[in-house]
């Protein structure tokens, strides 16, 4: 039986099926939920444009987009993993590891493109190892990725001996990925939009990704439908780490450096974004577009806090409250519908 059932013993079957029905209705009106997020984001932007003249400038807008573009790539993988019923706490560490591996290989004389490909491949390998522990050994995603988070962070420190690698010798063509732009639009944003568009489309339409929903919705029923749920879980885990690795090399290009401590705590931001955007920690539901809107909301809030001169010490607390509020509203909506 699914863990969901163990979780709410007092709820009766009927109540459960009702709240699930309601969630599904919301998912179907997915546009509605996403529309709700868009409205909130726009309202915040309008309010901020009165509060600060700097807010509604192309510069600030670009900065905001830039700030979540690269993380947005990681969110894509995380959302798919959440849909299959998993979670990945190691993404921050993997981003850093991909960065330092590529950086170290470049410093050792490899050309940056090959070095980056190796960095991404190594990230995929980390995903494969986690996938092995989840599907073959039978640990859950939470524990496995928690361990991986710590281990991979340790590896970052080992590779770099704890000091950031300075990569100012990167060739301009490589630096352009993170720093250049095309007709005024940064490449980073273009890459982000392409990745999001492709995966959002695939998740909605591709057969392979439909299996992700089946597995997350009811793993046993998926098995009883001939779906190799372990394979599905394995590949989704690999995908999440690969996208994190990809984000890592873009960060390297952007910063011209590889920092072993980079991205610590990033995973929480990313999970929060996906959940605000409607992904369920129980698996079975979520959309990429929603997760990106969640990311955008958090980013607008951060940017507002900075422009309003609110102390950085307050920022985490406020973001946490937003997460709580968003998830509560969603939950109450479900209840009302039932």
């Amino acid at each position, binding site marked *: *039986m*699914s863990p969901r*059932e*163990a979780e709410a*013993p*007092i*709820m*009766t*079957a*009927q*109540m*459960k*099926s*009702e709240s*699930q*029905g309601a*969630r*599904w*209705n919301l998912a*179907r009106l997915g546009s509605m939920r996403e529309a709700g997020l868009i409205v909130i984001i726009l309202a915040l932007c309008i309010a901020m444009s009165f509060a600060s003249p700097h807010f509604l400038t192309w510069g600030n807008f670009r900065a905001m987009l830039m700030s979540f573009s690269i993380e947005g790539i990681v969110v894509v993988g995380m959302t798919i993993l959440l849909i299959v019923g998993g979670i990945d706490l190691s993404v921050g560490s993997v981003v850093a590891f991909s960065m330092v591996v590529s950086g170290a290989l470049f410093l050792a004389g490899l050309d940056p493109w090959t070095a980056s490909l190796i960095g991404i491949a190594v990230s995929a390998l980390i995903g494969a190892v986690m996938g092995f522990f989840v599907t073959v050994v039978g640990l859950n995603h939470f524990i496995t990725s928690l361990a991986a988070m710590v281990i991979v962070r340790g590896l970052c420190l080992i590779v770099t001996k704890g000091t950031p690698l300075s990569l100012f010798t990167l060739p301009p063509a490589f630096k352009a990925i993170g720093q250049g732009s095309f007709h005024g639009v940064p490449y980073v944003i273009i890459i982000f939009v392409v990745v999001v568009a492709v995966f959002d489309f695939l998740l909605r*339409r*591709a*057969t*392979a990704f*439909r*299996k992700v*929903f*089946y597995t997350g*919705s*009811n793993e*046993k*029923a*998926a*098995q*009883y*439908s*001939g*779906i*190799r749920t372990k394979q599905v879980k394995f590949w989704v885990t690999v995908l999440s780490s690969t996208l994190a690795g990809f984000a890592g090399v873009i960060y390297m290009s952007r910063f011209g450096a590889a920092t072993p401590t980079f991205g610590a705590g990033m995973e929480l931001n990313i999970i929060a974004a996906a959940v605000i955007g409607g992904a369920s920690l129980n698996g*079975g*539901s979520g959309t990429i577009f929603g997760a990106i809107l969640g990311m955008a909301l958090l980013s607008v809030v951060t940017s507002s806090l900075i422009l309003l001169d609110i102390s950085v010490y307050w920022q985490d607390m406020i973001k946490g409250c937003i997460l709580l509020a968003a998830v509560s509203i969603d939950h109450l909506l479900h209840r009302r519908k039932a």
Partner: protein
Amino acid sequence: MSTPILEISGVSKSFGAIKALTGIDFSLAPGEIHALCGENGAGKSTLMNIIAGVLQPDKGEIRIAGERTVIANPAAAQRLGIALVHQEIALCPDATVAENIFMPAINSRRAPLMNFRRLHAEAQKVMDLLAPIPVRTKVGDLSISNQQLVEIAKALTLDCRVLILDEPTAALTEPEAQRLFAIVRELRSRGISIIYISHRMAEIFSLCDRVTVFRDGRYVATDEIVSTTPDEVVRKMVGREIAQLYPDKLNEAPGRTLLKVSGLSDGERCFGVSLELRAGEILGIGGLIGSGRSEMAQTMCGLRSVAAGEVEIDGQPIRISCYADAVKAGLVYLSEDRKGSGVFLDMSIAANVSALDLGKLTGKLGLLDRRAETAQATELAKRLGVRMGGVGAAVSTLSGGNQQKVAIAKQLSVDPRVMVMDEPTRGIDVGAKAEIHRLLRELASRGVGIVVISSEMPELIGLCDRVLVVREGRVAGELAADELGEEAIIMLASGVQSNSHNARAQNVA
């Protein structure tokens, strides 16, 4: 007649655009067993959920012992002495049987510590009334039918005035059902009123005092059992005559061998099973709960690991290491555990129907052809008469019987060569059941192999051309069409020198 213990008048309930109940009246006398009948989706479970405080009516009122009452939530219903055994099993799989049985009681207890020894002893006493299931077992390790018994035992521990049983026997075999009836009669003699929902007419007519019929969410009639007949009840339910409950049997010799199983064992629950299924026939498999019927079928289809034995389809030996292999070879299995492994509750009907073979619906570039998916689901849902808003609706919004039809539609979507169906008509109403039986017969005559595992004796006897009876994981015997009868099946199922209380361990599936 004395004041009814429970009186419903003018209750309506809608779910969005779907009207589940319209102006329902219903009354329950003290100390009666009152049957509630209606087709799948007629609104029976919805009304029970309203009485048990799970749902709130949109309109209408409820009187308990003459007093107008609002039942705000399940705890309030419990305080009023109303206990409901849900149609869908809702137990904690990780807790033991005893802990599950006393969940409501523990919930209302004040003392901070639990006396586990007493808990176990009391739970065992209640459980033994129904079946000798060891109460220290984890519920998740029990078969679906045993879970159903635990669910009933749980309700029996409540000190109630009104007991509602929503299709309690859907997953039970005859002996357990008989034991349940004895308990229900005993409760009646103590003045407790029982609402009994079932699609099995025979049960209703042997057990109940009155019967109320719903159709399309409306009240149709209430009759004394002694002054009505099963045919009349069915007519009121479906609004027309059902000429023939079971289709004609095969009247010629069966054709070539479709499925051959030899010496199949999984090493724990089934041993040395051999069987043969020929074109045109419907093969039945009977046996008591815990006899290993389902495990046998699951092993055949690669859902449990095979320790020894061989499976051949159309004379071709197939290697089945996982279920996907079986599906590819055209062998599909319908699970008896609808909610746990049969359907994806929060996904759409269309997505459920296509889960078995996505490849068929996949176009160029690995994209899913959603128009074809909708068309397929619409067609199959129409063929099976699923009552629904549309194929885009979540399966959780369907009534139990309609969810079962979706599970069957999923099997049909792949044009299987052999279908192994575990309790195919569980929870399905009389009319739809006759439809499904006719469909199975039609498939069989077109050369699809059909194996039906059923706890319902009349179904085995009425539908199948040949029945294998399983006992303790082995085929205990085979009955040809002319030997079929309840007695013959029970004799084989229980073993002739039956020691009435089978080993307790046997009940742990």
